[in-house]
């Protein structure tokens, strides 16, 4: 499946959350090609926003739009989901499967043509550096390898939109480096990646969104966020900028 033409992915006037607790109310923003990092403290709504984009039919109110066209129930949702890859924060694995089988199953779910499933799965595993262990049982793989299997699952349909919820959490530095390498190659898509790690942002993102309590406090390039740091001499300018933003009261809606 070829990557589609550059598109925009928008969420418009969206209200979403869990049961009684609505985290985002009337949220609107637009994502374009490239990696956008989503930063924010725990409970800020990062996962909620990513889930809202991953499952547009579960929004309480508002809509998700692809290139300005609303994703509605039925055919357009299925088409949207077929061109979207999603790595949830807690990736649940079929432990008896091999990486190849895991990825092939998702390919089937994403309607990759039957004849292309095997090749698509192999290509996805190749792109995350796991082709050598594709036939090993998943339970024998390290945490970092499993996380890369999860990334391969989200890539197998060659999606236009890639939504990654804290993909590097729990990885050791080497695994994180490998993972970032895999992800860096995906920059020609619309990638939204939530993270706690400003290192990830520094290395990968072209754009940063900082959210807190259902509000977008910052939307701009990493350099811009770094400039918000009160002390420009520090080596951790991006982190300092982020801290400055979440402690400020002025936000961007």
């Amino acid at each position: 499946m070829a990557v589609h033409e550059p598109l925009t992915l928008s969420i418009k006037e969206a209200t979403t959350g869990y049961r009684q607790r609505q985290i985002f109310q009337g949220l609107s923003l637009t994502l374009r090609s490239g990696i956008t990092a989503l930063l924010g403290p725990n409970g800020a709504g990062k996962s909620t926003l990513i889930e809202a984009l991953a499952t547009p039919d579960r929004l309480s109110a508002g809509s998700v739009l692809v290139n300005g066209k609303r994703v509605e129930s039925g055919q357009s949702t299925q088409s949207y989901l077929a061109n979207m890859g999603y790595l949830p924060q807690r990736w649940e694995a079929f432990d008896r499967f091999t990486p190849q089988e895991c990825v092939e199953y998702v390919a089937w779910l994403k309607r990759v043509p039957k004849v292309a499933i095997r090749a698509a799965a192999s290509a996805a595993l190749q792109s995350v550096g796991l082709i050598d262990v594709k036939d090993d049982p998943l339970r024998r793989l390290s945490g970092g390898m499993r996380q890369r299997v999860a990334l391969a699952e989200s890539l197998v349909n060659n999606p236009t939109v890639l939504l990654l919820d804290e993909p590097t959490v729990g990885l050791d530095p080497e695994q994180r480096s490998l993972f970032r390498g895999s992800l860096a190659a995906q920059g020609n898509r619309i990638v939204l990646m939530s993270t706690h790690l400003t290192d990830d942002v520094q290395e990968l993102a072209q754009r940063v969104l900082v959210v807190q309590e259902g509000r977008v406090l910052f939307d701009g390039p990493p350099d811009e966020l770094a400039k918000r740091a009160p002390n420009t001499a520090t080596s951790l300018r991006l982190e300092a900028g982020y801290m400055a933003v979440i402690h400020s009261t002025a936000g961007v809606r």
Partner: protein
Amino acid sequence: MMTWVRHSTTGAIGAAIGIAGVLLALHARREGLNLWTDYITGLSQASIYTGTLAAGVSAWEARRTHKPLVARLLVSSRPVVAVRVAHFASVAAPLALGFVIGVALLWAIGLATGVYGSPFIPWIGALVGAILAASAFGYGVSAVSRNQWYSPPLAAILFFASYVILQLLHAPNWSRALFPVIMNVDSEFVAHVSTTMFGQIVAYLSFVILVPVLIAVAAKRRRGPSGFILVATLIAGVGLGASLIGLRNGQYVTGQNPGDFVCEGARPQVCVNPGYRAGLAKLVTAFAELSQKSSDSDLIASRLEQQVEGIGDSPTRPARSLYIEDLSESGIAFSVARYVDRYGGGIACRTSEHTYDQHLANAVVQAWLSNFDELGFGGASPMEPGAAEFRRLTALGPVAARSWFGNHVRQYMSCGLTLADLP
């Protein structure tokens, strides 16, 4: 789907179901007989165990794969109902396949051992449907109990307990036939009520699809009309199957003698279903002995035909009924005893008032005539009523015994003998 099947626990359990089916079917063979109908009886009687197993393992598999499946279903671009049904199929298919392979193996064993007859295919179809329905039951119980650690044992226990309760409540036959456990007994002397079996197949298969569809529809936040239409159609399918079952009150077989006989012997001529041919010589010998003991009496007919029960059936005139349970030594003696009871003094003893002494004397003579000492006169203390008389009667030489019976045959036939009349 093959990936699922390959990694599913149900593959091993499917094999176990197949093996259990074969073993129980072979175990159901009666001594000296090798009949497909006995295999079917064994397979049917296995269904409470295989069903319980299928329910438990399906709940296990549903629980084991629940979280990763649901996570992927959220972002699947295939219809959730289709994915759920495919998942259930991967759970249930190995179980049904194991059973079918077991039946095929049984077929091969039957061919190699010269089995008589052939299976009634709708019966096999109903048994396959029952295993699938038991699997759907377990899959559904797991979903309803929220895929907890206790869901698999709960599903198995619920399945087994539901069956036991249905039996204890003496629920109407049609409602018991709806439950996916088929414990009916097949025989060479029945006509199969295929309406019931087709009803079960329709009801079971509708239920089998209904369960995963309901789980998928219930999990959807936004439900379109297509889901409801599908659910309604499947419920209608269960209803249609239940109606078909109800049409014949869940009856599985009805008495019928195909009249297909092989015969041997002169007086009497003994005719049995070809599947019982192996016992023909022994039966001829046993009835010849009876004929000898009871010569010049009406006890023995010129022709005996194997029938359903030996009582209440209709052999071609002037033949009489012969009932056979198995072809062991005691089975042959039992056949003679059933014959003597049906055509000897037993009928008179049952149809009019007689003393205990007369009943006892009749029993002693019947035990002697048939060589089937059911009441244990031969092993009892001589002080026991009838024991000494039985021993004296069996100790008589053939000529003396025949002479004694000839002198007392009218009393015997009218249940008028007393212990004092016995030698």
